[in-house]
Every structure is written in C-alpha cells, then in structure tokens.
C-alpha cells in the first residue's frame, strides 16, 4: 500500500484483493493483492508468462477474475458496469483501431462509444494532444508504427480515464517515439491519473513510477514504493526471476 494512502492522505484509486484467474487448468493469476492511491504509478516487471497481461486485462474489465475482486475508487469493478469502463483506459501494443478509417473517424467512433458530449471538440483535442492534428483525414492504415502508437494513446485517453493501464507501450518504438511516450506519461503523472505500467524496460519503468512490483508466476514476488535505489532494485529483480528459471 502506498505510504500516502496508508496515512489516509490520498484516497485509494485502485484496490486489488486476492485476484485469481485460471484458463482451464492454467493458473495465470494466483492471488494478486495491492492498493494504489490516486496519482500513483505502478510499474510491473516480470518474465514472460508471469501473467502481467492477464492482470491488466482483469484491471481493464476485459476478464473476470476466477476469485477475488477489483475496486475502482472504492466500488467493485463489475463487468457489466458502464460507469467503471469510463474510468479505465488501456494502451497495449495493438492499436484497436480500424485501418480503413481515418484518424478523425476512428476517434469520433470511440468518442461515440464512450458517449462523449462534444465529440468534434474531443477528437480535435485528442489529435492535438498527440501531435497528429495534421493527419486527421488520413487513413490509419497509412501510418507508421510510431504514429499508430500515438493514435492508440489518443484513443485510450479520449474519454479522460482516471486509471490508465499500459501493456508494454514502449515495444517496437524508435528513440523519437519512445521519448514522446515518456513525455506523455510524465504529463499523465502530473495530471494525477493512476497508472499501471507493464514493461520490460526497468530503467524507464522506475523513472516514471512511484511504486514497483515484480510479478512472477501469477503473483507479486515484490511490491513497494520506488525509493530511488536502482541498483538494489535491479538486484532484487534478477534474484526474483532467477528462481523461476
């Protein structure tokens, strides 16, 4: 639990209690517990197959936990609840966009799905926010990887979610795009949005996060605030993942 949340200074934005998720006999999540205060950013590291993506999908409401519960700002994340879906945004390494539609059309569609009021304004704002306003009327199928990633971010944030989930957003990005993404994440931190970031890049993750966790075989082997001692953290990470190998 974050120190500030413990002290009751910040409300709990995200509480995960005893979450299990199985696919048939494969136990992808075996009891994940943690809490994040508003504005906290959690970086989750771990080897492939640890269930990090599964965890994010449960937090996003795409998967129902086999056991346990997820609470967003105190209220349980019930799959059918539209209000909760408005509070969460997911950025993954696939864009969830339609190649045959233009940037503006894609965003307008998502604005419609989220029931936003002034759709045209929201679309314009989202495009400007990722620097793609000049490509509004071009089909997304013609965009480069970096541009697609920026569009995906615009899509994920168009409804101004309180909780932003990121699944290896840096993968496949060149230097420039990665730098732009880093700036964006810093901005999200400044806007006090709660974030959960799954990444393989320990340096990036620790730089942006307030908390860090190491997920191994479906549960957190370590969880705690980031205290700046990168070397010690890297050692702990190597130790935790070496056990599995």
């Amino acid at each position, binding site marked *: 639990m974050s120190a500030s949340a413990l002290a009751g200074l910040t409300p709990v934005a995200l509480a995960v209690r005893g979450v299990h998720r199985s696919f048939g006999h494969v136990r992808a999540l075996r009891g994940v517990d943690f809490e994040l205060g508003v504005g906290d950013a959690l970086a989750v590291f771990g080897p492939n197959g640890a269930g990090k993506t599964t965890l994010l999908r449960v937090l996003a409401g795409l998967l129902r936990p086999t056991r346990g519960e997820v609470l967003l700002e105190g209220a349980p994340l019930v799959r059918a609840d539209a209000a909760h879906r*408005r509070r969460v945004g*997911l950025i993954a390494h696939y864009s969830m*966009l339609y190649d045959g539609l233009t940037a503006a059309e894609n965003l307008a*569609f998502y604005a419609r799905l989220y029931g936003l009021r002034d759709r045209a304004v929201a679309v314009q704002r989202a495009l400007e926010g990722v620097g793609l306003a000049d490509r509004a009327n071009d089909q997304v199928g013609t965009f480069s990887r970096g541009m697609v990633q920026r569009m995906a971010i615009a899509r994920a944030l168009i409804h101004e979610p309180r909780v932003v989930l990121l699944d290896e957003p840096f993968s496949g990005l060149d230097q420039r795009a990665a730098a732009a993404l880093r700036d964006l994440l810093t901005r999200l931190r400044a806007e006090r949005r709660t974030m959960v970031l799954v990444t393989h890049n320990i340096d990036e993750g620790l730089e942006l996060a307030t908390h860090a966790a190491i997920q191994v075989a479906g549960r957190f082997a370590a969880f705690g605030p980031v205290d700046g001692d990168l070397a010690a953290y890297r050692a702990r990470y190597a130790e935790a993942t070496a056990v599995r190998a």
Partner: protein
Amino acid sequence: MLETLRLALAIAAKDVRLEFRSRTAFVSALVFTALVLAIFNFARDPTAVSASDLAPGILWITFTFAAMLGLNRAFGLERENRALDGLLLSPASRTALYLGKVLANLVFVGSVEAIALPLFALFFNVPILPVLLPLVLVIALATVGFVAVGTLMSSMAVNTRLAELMLPVLLLPFLVPPVTSAVQITARLFAGRPFSEALGWLRLLVGYDVIFVVACILFFESTIEE
C-alpha cells in the same frame, strides 16, 4: 434502451463505412451470386422442368450462400489490431454490439439480395413485379432470421482456425425453418396462389424470427465475454 439502439447504429454505420471503402466482400458476393444464378440455368433441363418449379429454391439457395460469404465479415474486421478489445473496453453494451453487427450484416446481405432479385427475375423469366410487395416482405423476414442466427454463429466461428468452414457447419441446420418457409411462400407467390395458403409457413417464419432474435440477444454476451 434508446442508447443501446443508437450505439448499435453507430457500430453498424462504422462497419458499413469500412465495407464501402474496401468493397471487396460486397463485390465478391455479387459476382458469386451472378455466377451461381447463371450456373443454375445450365444445371437443369429446360425441356423437362419449367423454370417456375425450381425458381423459388434457386433463389433462396443463392441468397443463403451469398449471405454466408458476408456473415464472417462482421467479426472478422474486428480482429485486425484487436479492435474487438476496444469495443469491449467501452461502456457500449454487448447487446448494442450484437445489434450493430446484425444491422451491418443486414445492410450487406440486403444489398446483395436487392441486386440478385432483379437478376434472378431476368435469368429465369419469373414475373416478380405483381407480387413484389409480399415477396419483399418474405425476403425481409427470412433474412432477419438467418442473419440474426448467423451473426451469433460467426462470433464463435471467427475464433476458430477454419472459420469459413465452421460457419456453414454450425449455421446450416438453423437455416432449415426460415429458408423452407421462405421457399414455400415464394413458390405460392410465383404461382399466383392466394396468400392464405401460405399462412402456416408465414407463422412459422415469424415465430422463428421472434424466438431466435431474442435468444441470440440473450446468449451473445456468453460468446463474447471471457
């Protein structure tokens, strides 16, 4: 309720726009339809069997096969870039998603039918104009039935390896009531028989539509949520 319908319309509009831009599936379905109709002409002996005996069956087989070409499209296009996740993440209800896909499929299949029907009348020299209104009604009722079930089946088939094969295997038994009814009613219309003779079939068709549209709406969520 109203919001669900509006969202369904938005989803359908998006699908129609995408299809309109690429047009591949639509054109393929049209070409397929024209070819099938032409081939049927050679598949019969014109001196032995009159066109009007076979015509209703030919019409409906053509409609059904053309529809099956298009049905997998609806969920197929959500697979690129995993757009389906985006839809499921949003507050849009699963019913809105299902209805939107059904609507988009209806537009697709309806458009093919609208072009196939005059072509059929031309090739087989069947007088459809005198019975055009009841004929269109029957076509609409039967199409709603098999598109509703077909859309649900495709939401499952699309996730299997041989989706194009899986859809007909799952769907064809479910097409027996609506297609049989449609053929029987169509035959009576072409033969100029009074409509009252076809009432039993019409009741069956409407009953099928009501039961299966409701059932598909109820069960769609189970096919899409994990």
